[in-house]
């Protein structure tokens, strides 16, 4: 609870709104609206028998208000906790590779089976490392895959198919 909203704090500190707060506040408003509007499709009910929509609408509305406060903070000099922190550029490519690796796992683990899926997933993830060569990533992937198979399949006896239907397992 070290710092609070920038109400009155550092007004006129900088003329442009503080982008991270703008984005955070905007996201909260968007998410709050999404839940509130989504919740309105369900039965709201009464205080005695609250329907499925009651709580999401109430909370969604609260989130919109809080998001608005964060946006206000953006125009009043920004959140002091991160205002002066350096932010390196977002590593889009690497983050994309990691997300792709995880999504690949989810989509294919049942069809391809654990072993081939893991090889691809770890290879994609290893490619996200800085200054890595594909060969090196492949070696890393093979090693981690072998380790995972030993730990989860041989030692823990998880009942996951090594090869899935798509490969005729």
């Amino acid at each position, binding site marked *: 609870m070290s710092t609070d909203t920038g109400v009155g704090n550092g007004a006129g500190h900088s003329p442009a709104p503080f982008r991270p707060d703008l984005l955070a506040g905007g996201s909260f408003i968007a998410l709050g609206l999404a839940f509130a509007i989504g919740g309105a499709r369900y039965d709201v009910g009464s205080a005695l028998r609250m329907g499925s929509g009651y709580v999401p609408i109430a909370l969604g509305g609260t989130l919109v208000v809080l998001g608005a406060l964060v946006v206000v903070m953006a125009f009043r000099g920004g959140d002091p906790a991160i205002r002066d922190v350096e932010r390196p550029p977002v590593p889009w490519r690497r983050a994309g590779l990691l997300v792709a690796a995880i999504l690949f796992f989810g989509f294919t683990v049942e069809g391809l089976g654990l*072993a*081939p899926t893991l090889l691809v997933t770890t290879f994609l993830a290893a490619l996200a490392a800085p200054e890595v060569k594909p060969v090196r990533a492949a070696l890393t992937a093979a090693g981690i895959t*072998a380790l995972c*198979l030993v730990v989860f*399949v*041989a030692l823990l006896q998880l*009942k*996951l*198919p*090594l*090869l*899935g*239907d798509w*490969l*005729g*397992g």
Partner: protein
Amino acid sequence: MRRHIPLTSLACLTMLTLAACGGGDADPAAYPEDDITMVVPFSAGGPTDTVARLIAEPMAEELGADIVVQNVEGAGGTIAGGQVADADADGYEVLIHHIGMSTAPGLYPDLAYDPLEDFKTVGLVTDVPMTIVARPDFEPETLEDLVSYVEENADTVTLANAGVGAASQLCGLLIEQAVGVDLTEVPYDGTGPAMTDLMGGQVDFMCDQTTNTASQLQAGKIKGYAVTTPEPVEALPDLPTTAEAGLPDVQVGVWHGLYVPADTPDEIVEKLTAALEVALEDQNVVDQMATLGTTPVPAEDVTPEAHTAKLEEQIDLWTPIIEESGVTGG
């Protein structure tokens, strides 16, 4: 498919000779050659899981293969149902499911499978009686008292249940229908929390399986009115049946059965049925079920025919009741 490939295939894998490692064609006569997975649609430790684990061991012994219990929770057991309906019809994935198999068509209009068309029945396992119980200081003393009390105080009496589609909710619907009242239902996330609040006197009464109520009744921590079976329950000698006590229409038991995908060869189903029959005669299974206040079904019900008949009868019973009550699983 989720058949477990034996560890030896690890070696094949490293050579990446993928095709060579595929499982061979299933030969029904040789079944079972591999571990069998028994899919439980509810969480580990719950009553259905307990029944599954109890019978898995003697069945495995009889079949000569390991049976692995896998818990696939969610959406009132329909996720597990969908998984087994889509599984390879080779007998290596078996579903154990309870009364929820017959209520799913009523609760879930967009159900991804048909309980009758997409499965072969293996046999019934057990029919767990239910009990009508109340908080310890609840006024009515007998089931008759309860009925008149509920009729007079329909506005204030609270009826607990373990959530949408739970056996306790179904039994509650039957009671409301039989008495002709619409009570305030208080849903809980499972039986444990509901029992906690019943014992603590936060809610008035509920109807739940003996699995959950027997020990609390025996210890006098809650009040019991009746059992919902035609016969009295041995573990609870003091409780009359609903028929004896004046609510003959409230007949409900949490029956369990085993299922395999519809295209499974009959030879495999016969082997499973035979193993189930042996398991249900196992003294340990009988003893353990007795501590839960239930018994294995009689031998003549451990057949696909009896099981299918029960399933059909229950679907016909529950679907209109559920539709009338407006309850939905979504």
